[in-house]
């Protein structure tokens, strides 16, 4: 049963620390999306990649957030330095080739708490 995996599942850190979240998309999927979920804002798209190339990261605060795909099996989202307002659940999702506008498959999320 192919699934998107994310690590860590939970992260508690102090303000100012660097946070790295990792995502392994479903094998063969070529689009990867990063979302942030908060009570106030709901689900927000932060960035997305197609064939490892960033297509849109306009939803991401550029000064502290960065997203990369070092290879087809790994996507990373970094926050440096982290702030309390970054506390949220961060979801990664992937999609199969030829269906960029279709269904996205979500990972279990990383629950981040910044103290």
């Amino acid at each position: 049963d192919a699934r998107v995996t994310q690590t860590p599942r939970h992260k508690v850190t102090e303000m100012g620390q660097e946070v790295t979240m990792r995502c392994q998309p479903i094998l063969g999927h070529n689009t990867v999306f990063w979302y942030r979920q908060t009570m106030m804002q709901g689900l927000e798209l932060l960035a997305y990649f197609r064939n490892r190339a960033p297509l849109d990261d306009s939803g991401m605060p550029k000064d502290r957030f960065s997203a990369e795909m070092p290879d087809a099996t790994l996507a990373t989202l970094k926050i440096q330095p982290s702030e309390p307002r970054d506390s949220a659940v961060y979801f990664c999702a992937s999609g199969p080739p030829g269906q960029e506008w279709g269904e996205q498959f979500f990972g279990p999320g990383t629950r981040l708490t910044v103290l």
Partner: protein
Amino acid sequence: AQSVSQHNHHVILSEAASLELGCNYSYGGTVNLFWYVQYPGQHLQLLLKYFSGDPLVKGIKGFEAEFIKSKFSFNLRKPSVQWSDTAEYFCAVNEDSGYSTLTFGKGTMLLVSP
């Protein structure tokens, strides 16, 4: 930019009651429509989707949704809810083109009491 509105933030129903969750979107072109469900503590899972064809779409667990183009709506329905349907439901839309991303509504939290 397109937007998605879900009319109810919270819905409370008793078991066996009928459910209808509203969803409206703003984009005027051809769209693809989705309903996702997020059970407590879990990730989003697809309930159903509409790309084209019959505007009445049937999904998993007895859910269905009807696409009404003239009303820009894609409401989710279930004739008889169960306690296990307690979850948050998200409507999502994207343009039917190669590089469009999903726009999600804010979600509706459904609580079904036994």
